[in-house]
């Protein structure tokens, strides 16, 4: 190559890098993207062919992205963190963008495979690389413990995967829920009893025994037994379980606040359950003559023996 050509190419190089910077700056100032036409308007001294070369170079290096908006080609500047993977190959980028799309909920491996059309081995390799670069992470789902979903590293998993406040490390915290349950019940029962004592007339007593979800939440918060910050919605779920246990009843007022109140059940004990046959696990295998029969039933014998002993 002649010196003149060299000089021309170097000057071209320096000016092309100059143009690169200008195009990048332009892209950054228009985060919604710039089209070819915009670039031509802004940088008129750049000939079309050179512009095409620069754009291809930037695309390959991963500084900009190519989009098709209504038939017009738009170029958008890639955000800073994505520049990290400019060293990686296309497959990684594709997988990364799929995972990014999934957002909070994460995406299952099989879904990534269908979207990217990669084979299992390739995908595994890519995922390993990305995990090592600490760009994505795997989170175990609470619903199906074998299922792993992938999401971006810095995102917090959605509550549908971790299960919300009741799950700690994918384990359902039964004792925690139980303690809260007991405390809420105690609070409501205390309110009911004090209402009965203090108020002589029934309507006032009834109104006083009502507690809103917010009151209970404040009480639980003050108790300080929970290390996790509980939302009012969580406390309402606990109060709903009290309703399902028939220890409390629920009422919604006109201005949409939800109130809870302790109630006694309508029937105290049911006769059938005081007799062993009512709770016998082999009741349906029992008959008058057979292996399991009332004449020799051990449950009946021990039940009768209790009464003989206590008499």
């Amino acid at each position: 190559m002649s010196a003149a050509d060299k000089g021309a190419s170097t000057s071209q190089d320096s000016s092309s890098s100059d143009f690169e910077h200008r195009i990048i700056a332009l892209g950054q100032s228009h985060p919604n993207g710039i089209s070819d036409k915009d670039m031509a308007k802004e940088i008129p001294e750049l000939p079309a062919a050179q512009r095409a070369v620069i754009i291809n170079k930037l695309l390959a290096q991963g500084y900009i992205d190519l989009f098709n908006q209504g038939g017009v080609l738009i170029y958008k500047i890639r955000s800073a963190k994505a520049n990290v993977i400019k060293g990686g190959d296309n497959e990684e980028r594709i997988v990364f963008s799929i995972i990014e799309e999934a957002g909070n909920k994460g995406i299952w491996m099989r879904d990534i495979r269908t979207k990217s059309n990669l084979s299992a081995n390739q995908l595994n390799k890519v995922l390993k690389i990305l995990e090592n670069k600490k760009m994505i992470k795997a989170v175990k789902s609470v619903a199906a413990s074998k299922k792993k979903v992938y999401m971006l590293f810095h995102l917090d998993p959605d509550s549908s995967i971790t299960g919300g406040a009741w799950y700690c490390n994918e384990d359902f915290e039964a004792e925690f829920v139980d303690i809260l349950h007991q405390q809420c019940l105690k609070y409501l029962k205390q309110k009911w009893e004090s209402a009965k004592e203090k108020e002589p007339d029934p309507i006032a007593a009834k109104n006083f025994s009502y507690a809103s979800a917010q009151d209970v939440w404040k009480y639980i918060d003050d108790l300080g037994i929970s290390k996790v910050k509980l939302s009012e919605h969580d406390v309402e779920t606990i109060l709903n379980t009290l309703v399902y246990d028939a220890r409390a009843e629920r009422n919604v007022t006109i201005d949409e606040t939800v109130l809870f109140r302790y109630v006694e059940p309508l029937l105290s004990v049911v006769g059938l359950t005081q007799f062993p046959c009512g709770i016998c696990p082999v009741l349906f295998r029992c008959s008058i003559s057979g292996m399991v029969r009332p004449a020799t039933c051990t449950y009946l014998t021990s039940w009768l023996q209790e009464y003989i002993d206590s008499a």
Partner: protein
Amino acid sequence: MSVDCGILCSKIILEHFGGVVKTVAHDLFKVSSKTLSNIVATTKLQRSQVIECLRILVRYGLVTYKVSLQNPKIPEYSLSYEKVLLFPRYVRYMLLVKTLYGDEAELLIEELLRSGSEKASSIIVRATTRLKEIKKGCKEIPQLIIKQEDLFMSPSLSLKELTQMEEGHPEVPANDVTLRVNFDRFHQEFRDNIMISAIKRRIDDNAGELMRVILQQMYIRTEAWEPISNPIPVVEIRNAVHKVKTNPRLAQHLDQYLKVLDEDSSNFITKVADSGGGQYVVNIREAFIQLSWAAVENIVEERFGSKAARVFRLIKSKHFIEQEQIQQYALIPAKEAKLITYRLLEECFIQIQELRKSMSSAGPNKTFFLFHIDIDQVVKKCLEICYKALTNSMVRRQHERDEHKRLIEKQQRIESLTANLREQGAPADQIDELEELLTPLENEALERVRIMIARLGEAELRVDDNMFLLQLYLMYSNCK
């Protein structure tokens, strides 16, 4: 009817009437109605025996007859098994009458229950002779208590004729009437008591009293077994409460108690209009739906555990719910929730409804499995459990009695001998000698048997109470 119910009926009839009557009754249980010759053919008993059995059963109101469809000259007999199932309840009837009307009334009812249906005069005479034996010093015939509600038609008998009968004159008084116990009236009392005690638990004692007053007022305007009463004006309730006078707090806060009862989630009473200071209606059908739900939930809790009861109530409130939602709302770990749900499904307390997204069977199909409760089914299932429990208790009682039969007979013989000796005024050491024939070990065994039989009897009454509630629910849910 179900096999368990049949076994129970046979057992009851065996206990009260004996083996031959049991065969006839069991035969009738299996069909809706049969002619006499059919019964003779299938039971292989003698015709006269079958006639005697039928006579006894008809007298106790357990068998009814109507004209046969095939041959208008022959009657066909059918068994009313509901009446058979009332036998375990007799003790409670007597207790109720005793609390309401006194000892003499109890004796009358006892005699009537024992003989099924009998002429009024003979009942009264027998009761008075028993009463005289109990209270030795009493010379006069006790006051004749005619309880019009309990019996169909009050007999107009004169005391003079009765004394004549008692002294052995064979004449039967002119205006004699055959009496039979009106079970419906007793059931009405039981039903009211259940409702009142439920309100007492829910709100407080004063509200229970108010409920009692309201129910009394209800009977003035409404038939006893209507599912929903006619409106009762507040004015009447207020007057009734003031008349009772035992409860000043109730009178003071009457309006408030009415409001609380109205707004309570149990829905026993609703306000329908404002005329006359307010009109209230008693929703008996609604009340029993609530009460039977409470009973069934209690049974689920005792049989399967409190977590299962939570799941059951959750399904009840949401009507149709998926497995995942169950563990989400009930705050139960996933595995445990699944176990409980499938156990409930196995014993038919809950049911499953499939919703298919596509009818094709190719490929993985997303089918929704929704759990729901059919309360009629569940109540019938619980009734079956009650029948079985009652049968088991009776069988066990019989078994204990048979095991120690020899001992019991020996004790009875000794008792009768000592009673005779005491009457004849024999010396004390002779009586002691007789009593010592029973060793302390035997005494202990007898005591044990006595406790066991008493306990089983008590349990039968409780199970029967439960049965009554469930049967009432089925009756109200059938009559729309």
